[in-house]
Structure formats: C-alpha cells, structure tokens
C-alpha cells in the first residue's frame, strides 16, 4: 500500500522569430509575438482551462485530493499577456489550499549546467513570482527537464529546499525502486523524490497509443496497477499539457483524470504533496554524478546539449552574461534570459531529427539548423547591443566576438 504524488509541469517558451542576418543591428524584436499568442491561446483552450476546471472539481469533491504544480516564469508571463483567465484559474486553485507550488528556474533554463550565478538569479526570480502571485514559499525544488545530479541537490539544500525531484531512471536506480524516498549522497537532510516513469509515461505518452496492448487505460485499470505496489509514494510527474494538448480530449484523458481519485480511494490510496514526502525517512542514499533528465531513452542532457550547435549556442549565450547584466538595460536583460529557455536548445537537437519523431512535433522551425541560425543571429544582435559602442561599429564588435568561439 502506498500513496500517490501528482506533480504537473506548466511551461511555454517565448518562441523566437525567424530572425535573419539582415535583422542584426536593426531589429531588437526577437520573439514571435503572434505565434506565441496563438500557441498560448490554443493550449489554454484545449488544456489549461479545462484541466484546471477538472482539478478544481476534484478538490471540491474529494477532501483528500491534492497535487503540485510548477509554473515557469515564461508561461506565467504569457498567461498574463495572452490568457489572463488561465492565471485566474491557477490563483483560484492556489486559494483552495489543496495545491502546492514548486520552485524552478524562472526561465526554464539549464543555467545550472552553465553558470551557477545565473541559476541562483533565476531561482530567486521564480521564488518571488510564486510568492507574489500564489502566496506560497515552496520547499521543494525541481530543475528544468528534471536535470539532476549530486551537485544540484547540494546547491538546492544550501538554498533552503527540503526536497528535490528527479527522474527514476533505471541506469541510476538499478534494482532500487523509484517508489521510496531517498537522500542525495552529498546532502545532510535533503530528500530525493523520483518519478515513476513507467506509470507516468503510461499517461503522458502511451495513453492514446492504440498499438499499446493496455489501450485503452481507464482510471479503474490504472488504480488496479497502483494498488499492489509497495513504497512510500508513487510519484506521477508529467507535463500538464498532457491533458488536452498532448493527449486530446477525445482520447478520454479528462475523464481519466476525473475518475482517478475515486478509483484510488476504492483501493484505499490517497494523495501526498511533495513537501509531505520530504518528512519521510529516506530508504537509502543515491549517488548520482553525471546529469540525468526525464527526456528520451537516454535520460541524459543530450536533447539540449548533444551536438556542436547546441554547445556553441549555450557557450555564446552564457559568455554574454556579464556584459548584458552590466548594461543595465532591463529589456535587453529580459530578452537575454528568455533565450536561456531550454526549448531553444531542444529545437536544435539533431539526435532524433532523422526519425522525425516527437522532437519534430514541438519544433517551430523547419530544421534544427534553422533554429540554430535564428538563435545565433539574435545573439549576434545582442553582442552589438552590449559591445557596439566601444568597438566603433558593428562589424568590429561582431568580429571580436566571433573569434572567441
């Protein structure tokens, strides 16, 4: 017998325009306003609004129902701009007291892997956003894409967090179960909560897959799978967009969510917040050195930092940090930070490009190469903005920076 911990990731990036070489030095409008509005309003209609309604009803109906959200700053800003009703509905959920918010980097970035100061800045921005809008001070941290290692756990502990989330990847767990609470080796009292990827992905990825032998999955069947499992908690971590966007309404995904708590209750299973799991005695220590994530089969960082383009782009971005921050130009700083969002690097991924799978679906560009071109053009414009004056002209500034990498 065990309990269930539900955590939903809410995120939208600021997608870039098809910014070309002629724009450099002439155009500081980097993001595709129209596209971002369209996507946000579409996803709001298909997912955020109806899913929040379901969650609201579940809270009203079941006094033991609870769940957690992590909402990125970039999603939050786009709610404000394009879909304020979504923000209202999240605030309403927050006011019920049944919803816990987690912290992450405001810009959904991989800054932890590149620049610790930037990472700390972005986490602080996120803390402030959650506090101001949802009146919570999170005690649980989740890093972008569940990228995790010992070092991160230590950093999060130093920042005052009690628990941190990670993928329950086979290659680190071995025979161990993801359904227990662990302690990261490098920390004193931190708790590590691992995603049960099999059960999570049954919903997030396989729910509508007709070739899957378990299709269709009902709430009843799913509860029967969970009931016999031993452990502290079954951690079901997934993108909130699973509901209505990745799995369309006609797959029955909302019905599934609606019925799940009642079916679990029949089996005597209840819900926990991540913060409650932070109080459980750890089963064991976990020692994880190289960064892992929740992406792809590899469960590593290769979806964002797996090729030369991605590495060159990241290196260029973070190399500009000091100049951008010292410019004192708030719009510039804001734009630069939005470029740190992991999605931009995901668009440049060539790993699965040849198979044309899921990466393609999420890519607003025709190819990873074109994503890289737009990105580097924008960075070149930023170089001019921060370096242009002192270098006497655009060309010289560019040259100097081009030669760095």
């Amino acid at each position: 017998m065990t309990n269930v911990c539900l955590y939903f990731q809410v995120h939208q990036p600021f997608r870039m325009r098809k910014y070309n070489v002629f724009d450099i030095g002439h155009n500081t409008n980097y993001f595709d306003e129209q596209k971002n509005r369209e996507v946000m309003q579409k996803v709001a209609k298909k997912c955020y609004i109806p899913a929040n309604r379901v969650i609201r009803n579940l809270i009203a109906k079941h006094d033991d129902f609870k769940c957690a959200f992590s909402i990125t700053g970039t999603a939050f800003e786009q709610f404000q701009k394009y879909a304020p009703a979504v923000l209202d509905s999240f605030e309403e959920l927050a006011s019920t007291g049944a919803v816990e918010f987690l912290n992450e980097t405001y810009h959904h970035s991989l800054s932890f892997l590149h620049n610790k100061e930037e990472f700390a800045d972005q986490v602080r921005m996120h803390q402030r956003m959650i506090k101001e809008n949802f009146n919570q001070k999170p005690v649980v941290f989740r890093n972008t894409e569940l990228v995790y290692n010992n070092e991160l756990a230590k950093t999060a502990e130093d920042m005052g967090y009690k628990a941190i989330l990670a993928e329950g990847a086979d290659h680190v767990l071995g025979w161990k179960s993801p359904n227990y609470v662990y302690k990261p080796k490098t920390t004193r009292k931190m708790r590590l909560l691992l995603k049960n990827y099999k059960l999570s992905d049954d919903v997030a990825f396989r729910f509508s897959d007709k070739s899957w032998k378990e299709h269709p999955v009902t709430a009843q069947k799913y509860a029967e799978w969970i009931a016999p499992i031993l452990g502290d908690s079954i951690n079901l971590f997934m993108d909130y967009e699973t509901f209505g966007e990745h799995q369309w309404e006609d797959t029955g995904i909302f019905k599934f969510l609606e019925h799940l708590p009642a079916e679990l209750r029949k089996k005597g299973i209840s819900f926990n917040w991540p913060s409650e799991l932070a109080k459980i005695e750890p089963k064991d220590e976990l020692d994880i050195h190289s960064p892992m994530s929740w992406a792809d089969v590899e469960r590593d960082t290769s979806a964002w930092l797996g090729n030369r383009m991605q590495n060159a782009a990241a290196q260029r971005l973070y190399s500009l940090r000091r100049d951008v921050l010292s410019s004192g130009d708030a719009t510039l700083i804001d734009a630069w930070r939005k470029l740190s969002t992991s999605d931009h690097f995901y668009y440049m991924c060539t790993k699965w490009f040849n198979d044309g799978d899921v990466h393609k679906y999420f890519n607003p560009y025709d190819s990873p190469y074109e994503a890289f071109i737009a990105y580097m053009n924008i960075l070149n414009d930023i170089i001019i903005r921060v370096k242009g004056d002192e270098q006497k002209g655009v060309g010289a500034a560019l040259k100097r920076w081009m030669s760095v990498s």
Partner: protein
Amino acid sequence: MKPTRVLMLGWEFPPFKSGGLGTACYGLTKGLARQGVHVTFVMPVAPEGAKAEFVKLIGANQFGKNIKVLQIPSTLAPYQTADQYAEDYAPLSTKGVYGRNIYQEARRFARVAKIIAKKEPHDVIHAHDWMTYDAGIEARKVSGKPLVVHIHATEFDRTGDHPNTYISNIEYKGLKEADLIIANSNFTKNNVMKHYKIPENKIRVVHWGIEEDDPAYHLNYRSTINKKGKVVLFLGRITIQKGPDYFIEVAKKVHDFEPNTYFVIAGDGDMMPRIINRAHELGIAEKVIFTGFLQGADVHKAFQMADLYVMPSVSEPFGLVALESLKNKTPIIVSKQSGVSEVLKNCLKTDFWDIDKMTDMIVNVLRNQALHDELKELGHNEVQKFNLDEPARKIHDVYKEVIR
C-alpha cells in the same frame, strides 16, 4: 526464374556527359546488373574527340557480363537547347558529318533503335528522357514489348517554364504512349501531372542514389584560395534551370557581410557571359571565380575545396550533384524546388527565389563552425543511405509490373 532483359535507350555515359544523367545511367545499369537484370544499353556515340576515351570506359567492362553497350554514331547532347546545338554543330553539319539539328539526331536515333530492337532480344524497353522516347516507341512497334519511359527532367524544368513546343510534344507523346512512367522525384511526378495531364496511377517515383565509392572522394583537396578565405560553390550548367542568376545576387549580399568569401562557379552554359557581367556590375568580380566545365576528379576537388555548396535550382527534378557534395563532406544548401530536398534532412533548404534567406543561411554557415561541422557530418552520414541498389530494385519492380 529467367533474368529480365532490358533494352535501355540512353544518350550519355561517363566520362562523356554534360550533366547528371550520364552518372545516373551508369549507376542504374550497375545496380540493375547486381539485381541480375540483363541490360543492353544503346546510346549515340560521342563526337570524335571523346570517342577514344569513351570506348576505353566501356571496353573496361566493369559491370560484368550482364551489360552490353551498343553505340550509334550520333551527336546527341541532350542538355543543349536547340539553339545551342545549332551554334555548336553548325560548322560540322555543313560538312555533312552530323545531323543538321538536334531533332534530326533524335529521329536518326529512333531509326537505328528499330534495327537494334529486331536484333537484340529483350523483355522490356526502358527509354531515358525525350531524346529517346521516339526511339522507344519505334522499338516497341518492332518487338511489341512494354515500354517504360524514365523522366529525369521535363522540358519545363530545363527551360524555366518556357518549353520548346517541338520537344514538349515529343515528351508528351512518350509519356502518353508509355506503359509505365518512372519519375525521379515527387517533384518531377507533379510536373508531369501538371504539364501533361498524365494520370497519377501511371507514374512510379524512384529517387536516385549515388555510387558507393570512388577514390576521388578521398583526395582531401584544398586550394590556395582556401588560405585566403571561405569558399562558396555553385556547380552545374550555367543555364536558367540551375539558377546561376540567383546565385550571383546572393553572392553580392553574402559579400556585404563576409567580404573575405570567394564564390566559385563551376560549369558552362549559355548564361555564362551574363553572369560574368553581373559579377562586374555588382563589384564582386575579384571574388568570383569561373572554372569552366569540370569533369572527373576535378568535380570532386571543387567540392572538397568548398566550405559550402549551393544548389539554387529553379527547377531540379532530382539533383544528384547535391548527394555528390555531401559524399565529398561538403555541406549543402538546396532549393526546395528540387527532388533531392524531398529526401534529404541534414541540409539547408530554401526557395530558389528567396535571396535573403539563402544569404542568411550562407552567412551563418560561414560564421558558425558548429553549424558547418554538424551539417557536414550528419549530411555525410545521411548520404550513405542513398546507394544504387535501392533504386535499381524499385526499377526492377517496375519492369516486373509491366511485363506481367
């Protein structure tokens, strides 16, 4: 099962060729031979100068005993426009050596094909492009065997939608008469359907492949120009179909961003004087290098010295040359108006008319080593998939379908 015997009608074969078709026929016959298909390849003989070299090639008999090459004396050079032909061969025709024009040559080819069709046993006739369609039709009259016509380029592709009606009529007749049509891309298939109203169910698409290896791919050639700056290559006939006029406009724009770039234009064609003039007008003449027509190892050297190959074709039925570039480890930008853009992923693609986008792509490949290297490595890996066995197998299937 008895091997399929094909009477194949073509017009060029390496090393004597003016475009990609010779390479394609060479590869196809080689691939078919591996499939156990017996090919009799009938082609007009090259003009005198190239003859010795040519005979040596076929004498080498590299395809084993499955292929026989027969030659008919002729001056066919299919990629020429009718005007170009008249210009090139006027001095010869007055001496009564060659046919007066390209149409006469095609008719002569048809007459001889008739005789050969009587002598050479075959199960199916396979004719490549319009020059051989009359020959194919004549051969079928004699032997009664099914006719497959292969369309590597339509007259509309070659002329930028201003077809020579005499040629487009022959093309139409061949396509209409054929039992089945092989198009080398969906792009070509769509053109055939659009311009000739041929029903879709009569057309099979077979994308092209590339020869497995050649020592010339491994020369690692670098030129002295490489020490001076980056090199962007155009390689192909300098004719309206290949978009050299777009290339030169793009060159100017790239030059404005990256003045240290050289633009190599490799090839020959009726638009060459115009492109040379334009380079002067744009003030980039000293950065534009014309090599003239290249063949053999020189083609590979041109690719290897280039940092990027650009194929801005206005209408490119397939674009084998793009595969050759990748095989030489040179990344490519291809126009979306090409067959090869349907099948390649690891390259940059743009509309031929989108000069700004092409400039953007070129400048970024030149500026970002990471982009260049990624395109180079993954493009080179991807091109390994394009062998000749796959198209040969598909064409063998077409034979079986039509013989049945």
